[in-house]
């Protein structure tokens, strides 16, 4: 079943258009990666999906249902979660409180999921009584992802997956995500700059440029595609 | 006139306004004020100063600059009068007031301010004079006062006289304007257990002081309050608890003088009773007297020229229902006495220096 189906999405800020006719879909149980040039509208796209930015046009269907007019909190209830760029953490609350709040729409399973997230990120367990605002940059990133996991979403969206994370943590995270997908069938939509990583863990990927989808396909195929190799893999 | 309709001095302000209104109606019924050859109907513009001197100042400024008023009847409250005075003086208008008794008003070198009240220290002095004349002679006194221009003056009068008469002042302390809880002061008074308690404040505080004295079970032999007891509302507010409390008055209906407008003091009392259904007390009388003084000066001057009217006021020495009205060069009245009343059987009766009845002393404890 198509979990998420976006067609012809247009969006922007003020009168500056950022997204132009973006269409994209995510199947159930699939991990989809988005990469592409900076400023091409990836974060904007996720903002529209979670609902903190209103689209100008186009449709967003989640589980066959139109959600483009729902406020964010309703979408979260339906099973979408976002670990946002800029993190949007509750800096003045403790790490544990931040995580618990992630379970707002799944309160009955809060305790259980807390354990789970702590097992993924022991760093957070150590810091659970400290304020989120006092965490290091990378720790905040972990917290943001951990919080998104707390609601047991059907679709997990992560902006800048590896941002500021140490290599060891990135590896661990990659493992965790593939495992969660296998065990729980959660779908994911991931924005990641590190293209080899993105293609490593995803089934399919989209390439954004200047607000448009310029390329898409199965990750293995893209990895082999020359244009991609040239622009994104061989530069360093 | 800018008068307090609301706020802390709403009660006194209303009484003052009654005094003005009675005068206005009486004069207008008689055909108005005769100035030169013309007769003028009296019109009084009122504004509510909400018992706030700053507002008074603003309103008087407005009366003079916007409404073009030249002759102003004063507001109630010394601070209000004080505030208004500066403005009146600035614009060289003329104010006659029967609402402020602070002596400070007359120490500013103002030329255009006249007042028909004895100054505040006399309030305190009269109370002490009465107290020491009673047997058994009280020995200790506690004086509390509201931190305002009039009350402080009155309290200082009492303090001075108490020292002169050899009383021991065990407490002399102020509380802020508008205070509504005096627990701390009461605790202090209770610890000192004085024979006399003098409270210098205004109507509201008088009620509060009595209530809290009772609440804290404090039983002095003599309770004197500068403002309150002569006002009918005082008994209404306190009922039985008002009994035997003393209060000084600028004027009482026991006075006996002739009057150009009302015939004599009795005539005034009757006119007042007819209009308002109760006896006048000194706030209203002060208002009427102030207006009367202005009227007489206007008629004698025969012109609306402020300077000339002022000269007439300075020269004046006339007998009215209120006593003889005459001012010194600072504008202060210098020609009339004061009195003290005590609440007996729910009514204020004059007990000093003229005696309608004997004072009850010492005061029995609260029930």
């Amino acid at each position, binding site marked *: 079943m198509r979990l998420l189906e976006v067609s012809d999405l247009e969006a922007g800020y003020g009168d500056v258009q950022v997204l132009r006719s973006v269409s994209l879909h995510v199947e159930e149980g699939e991990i989809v990666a988005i990469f592409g040039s900076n400023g091409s509208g990836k974060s904007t796209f996720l903002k529209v999906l*979670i*609902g*903190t930015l209103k689209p100008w046009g186009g449709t967003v269907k989640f589980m066959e249902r139109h959600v483009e007019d729902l*406020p*964010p*909190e309703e979408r*979260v*209830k339906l099973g979408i*979660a*976002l670990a*946002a760029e800029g*993190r*949007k*953490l*509750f*800096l*003045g*609350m403790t790490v544990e*409180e931040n995580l*618990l*709040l*992630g*379970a*707002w*729409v799944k309160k009955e399973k809060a305790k259980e999921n807390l354990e789970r997230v702590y097992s993924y990120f022991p760093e957070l367990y150590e810091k659970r009584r400290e*304020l989120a*605002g006092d965490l290091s940059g990378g720790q905040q990133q972990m917290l943001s992802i951990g*919080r998104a996991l*707390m*609601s047991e979403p059907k679709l997990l969206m992560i902006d800048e997956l590896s941002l500021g994370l140490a290599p060891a943590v990135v590896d661990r995270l990659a493992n965790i995500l593939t495992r969660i997908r296998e065990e729980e069938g959660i779908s994911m939509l991931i924005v990641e700059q590190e293209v080899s990583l993105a293609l490593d863990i995803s089934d399919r990927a989209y390439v954004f440029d200047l607000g448009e989808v310029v390329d898409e396909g199965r990750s293995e195929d893209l990895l082999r595609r020359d244009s991609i190799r040239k622009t994104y893999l061989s530069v360093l | 006139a800018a008068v307090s*309709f*609301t*706020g*802390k001095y*709403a*009660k006194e302000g209303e009484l003052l306004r009654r005094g003005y209104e009675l005068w206005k109606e009486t004069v207008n019924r008689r055909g108005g004020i005769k100035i030169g050859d013309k007769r003028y109907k009296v019109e009084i513009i009122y504004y509510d100063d*909400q018992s706030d001197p700053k507002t008074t100042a603003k309103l008087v400024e407005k009366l003079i600059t916007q409404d073009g008023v030249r002759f102003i009847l004063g507001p109630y409250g010394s601070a209000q009068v004080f505030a208004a005075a500066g403005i009146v003086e600035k614009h060289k208008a003329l104010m006659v007031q029967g609402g402020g008794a602070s002596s400070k008003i007359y120490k500013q070198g103002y030329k255009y301010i006249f007042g028909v009240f004895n100054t505040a220290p006399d309030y305190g002095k009269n109370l002490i004079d009465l107290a020491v004349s009673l047997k058994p002679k009280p020995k200790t006194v506690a004086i509390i006062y509201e*931190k305002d221009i009039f009350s402080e003056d009155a309290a200082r009068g009492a303090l001075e006289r108490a020292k002169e008469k050899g009383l021991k002042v065990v407490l002399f*302390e*102020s*509380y*802020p304007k*508008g*205070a*509504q*809880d005096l*627990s*701390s*002061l009461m*605790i*202090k008074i*209770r*610890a000192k257990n004085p024979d006399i308690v003098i409270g210098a404040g205004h109507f*509201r505080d008088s009620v*509060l002081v009595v*209530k809290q004295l*009772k*609440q*804290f*079970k404090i039983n002095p032999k003599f309770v004197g309050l500068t403002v309150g007891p002569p006002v009918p509302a005082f008994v209404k507010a306190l009922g039985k608890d008002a009994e035997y409390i003393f209060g000084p008055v600028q004027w009482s209906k026991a006075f006996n003088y002739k009057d150009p407008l009302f015939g004599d003091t009795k005539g005034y009392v009757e006119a007042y009773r007819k209009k308002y259904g109760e006896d006048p007390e000194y706030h209203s009388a002060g208002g009427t007297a102030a207006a009367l003084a202005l009227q007489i000066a206007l008629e004698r001057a025969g012109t609306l020229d402020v300077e000339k009217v002022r000269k007439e006021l300075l020269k004046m020495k006339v007998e009215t229902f209120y006593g003889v009205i005459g001012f010194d060069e600072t504008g202060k009245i210098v020609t009339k006495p004061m009195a003290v009343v005590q609440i007996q059987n729910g009514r204020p009766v004059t007990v000093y220096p003229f005696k309608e009845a004997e004072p009850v002393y010492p005061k029995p404890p609260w029930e």
Partner: protein
Amino acid sequence: MGILPQLILESLLLGTFYAFMSLGFSLMWGVLNIINLAYGTYIILGAYTAYTLYTGLGVDPLLSIPFSFLLGLSFGVLLQRVLIDRVMRLEPFMVLILTFGLDVFLSNLLNLIFRADIRSIDVPYAERSFVIGPVIVTEVKVLVFFLSLLLTGAVYVLLQKTWTGRSIRAVALDREGAQIVGISPGKVFAVTSGLGTGIAFSSGNLYGVLQGFTPFDGGMLTVKAFLVSIVGGLGRVESALAGGLFLGFLEVFTAFYLGEGWKFFASLLVMFLFLLIRPRGLLGGKYYGEV
């Protein structure tokens, strides 16, 4: 000396009332990040409600507390929905101005209806008191003390239902963040504002029994609530208690030893110093003005 027990008793009784009175203010501040300058006037509104019910229908002001609370609750929710929600998005000081405008409006409206005269709710037991050894105890104050304690406890329990409490704070810290985890900020704002205003109104009943009031006394009460919140720290019941007692002691002792006139000044000075030196309060955690 014999006077000390009396002073301590007075401070305790008064302080507990202050704690309850300030709870709503502290809650709205800690949670909505709003300093509600109309708060004091909410209390006064409560006092007038109790006054009207008492003089009109003879309902004892202590019995009409639930009614005041409900009235405040609806009023708070309404205000939040109609006014404050829209302004909260702007800089914080805009809400200050808005609530100040509200304060001017409400107090003048009261003045229009009731005039500026001092009113008091003269319940028959108002002047009753009894003596224990060196201290004299005023019955009303004791009643108010117990009621304050009881109601404060109730609020404490309410906030301990952690999900509500937590959601409330989350929204305050990052509105978009809260939405992302599925909380509806609008609802949370309304609940908090309603609760806070309800507390203000019901404390008005107690205030009205304790002493006289006029439409313009709100400003001073806001300052007191503010002081309690600053001294104690924000948004927590324990902090409000600490702050309330602090203010109680401060007022009674300065009034006694320095004179009534210095009471308010002392409070303001202490508040000023607290803000400068320890803006997080005695018990408080981090405050929000700083990241």
